[in-house]
């Protein structure tokens, strides 16, 4: 028998293949150090972007948000991430654009929101037009047309953890009216 054990945690431990949102903390030579919320910063090579060559360096500054996946992540080695997939295409990864809001939630909520049949995401999409990025390390980046809408969306997603489906539907209907 195979068991799926679901747990509720706040601290992320890097796993190979996970897509995460990281914050660039340092640029040293050919690699960037990216904080992913684990015990060590991950390393990201400047060549691991789509269309990057030694002459054509990607435009990444300290403090930028990066969406990438882990290629090396085990307990004995420093985690390494890249912003291209195995075919060399970006497929949505790379530097996350200007503006928007990054906030932290628990790992269990991210898994719930990323489940294939998640209603929360569909309801949020009907509310305002938005851009949203989920990192498996508990980080969500959200951007809507105005700052107020962005903050409302951030608050709703953070609160989804503790609300039942009925309470959520009430809040959505109230927001849709106003």
């Amino acid at each position: 028998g195979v068991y799926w054990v679901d747990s509720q945690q706040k601290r992320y431990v890097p796993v190979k293949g996970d897509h995460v949102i990281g914050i660039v903390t340092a640029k040293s030579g050919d690699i960037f150090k990216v904080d992913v919320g684990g015990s060590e910063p991950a390393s990201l090579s400047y060549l691991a972007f789509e269309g990057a060559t030694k002459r054509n360096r990607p435009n990444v500054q300290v403090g930028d948000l990066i969406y990438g996946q882990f290629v090396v992540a085990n307990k004995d080695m420093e985690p390494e991430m890249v912003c291209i997939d195995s075919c060399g295409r970006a497929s949505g990864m790379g530097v996350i654009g200007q503006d928007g809001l990054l906030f932290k939630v628990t790992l269990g909520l991210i898994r719930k929101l990323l489940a294939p049949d998640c209603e929360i995401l569909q309801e949020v999409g009907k509310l305002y037009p938005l851009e949203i990025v989920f990192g498996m390390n508990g980080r969500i980046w959200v951007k809507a047309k105005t700052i107020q809408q962005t903050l409302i969306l951030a608050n709703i997603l953070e609160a989804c953890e503790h609300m039942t489906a009925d309470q959520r539907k009430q809040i959505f209907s109230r927001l849709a009216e106003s």
Partner: protein
Amino acid sequence: VEGAMQADAKIRTESATESGPRGPSCSLRHFACEQNLLSRPDGSASFLQGDTSVLAGVYGPAEVKVSKEIFNKATLEVILRPKIGLPGVAEKSRERLIRNTCEAVVLGTLHPRTSITVVLQVVSDAGSLLACCLNAACMALVDAGVPMRALFCGVTCALNADGTLVLDPTAKQEKEARAVLTLALDSVERKLLMSTTKGLYSDAELQQCLAAAQAASQHVFRFYRESLQRRYSKS
């Protein structure tokens, strides 16, 4: 929109009275435990035993200073803050005891070169403080999702001058007792993880205290299990 959800688990065990000596049957004070009550730590728990209350927070597996890192396992740190005043030598020695207990149980080899920090704050002290700290630390480690090979609990026994054994003594009973023993037991085989004793006692009495503590730990572990079941069944 509302914030923190608090999973409250109050189980009433046989409640103790201040008057008269209790029999050697298991009579622990009323327990209560609350988890996930602090927003910053990765795991937190508050444990109440009678009037003794301890708040615990766990951070980890997190970054560790290069001077403190261990190449093949996690570095466990325990910080105990008393209710009033600066931490002194008594706190340091309790920190060491709690750290040794946690190190025996936590699977540190899964997270080498990281640090797991347990911070304990004494909210009120009415006897059996070390046992309450151990229980709070265990619940906080579970809340943080730190991998462990077993749960652990602390039980305090006090031996009176006439030889009677009192479990989970109050501060007054501890002061009047001839010997006070605090034992930490694991949940898998009720084995002894840590013991610290103060006073005069014979080895027959030590065995008697150990047996009583093992019986009492059944209650504590059942309380842990019910408290966690209640918490996870709410989501």
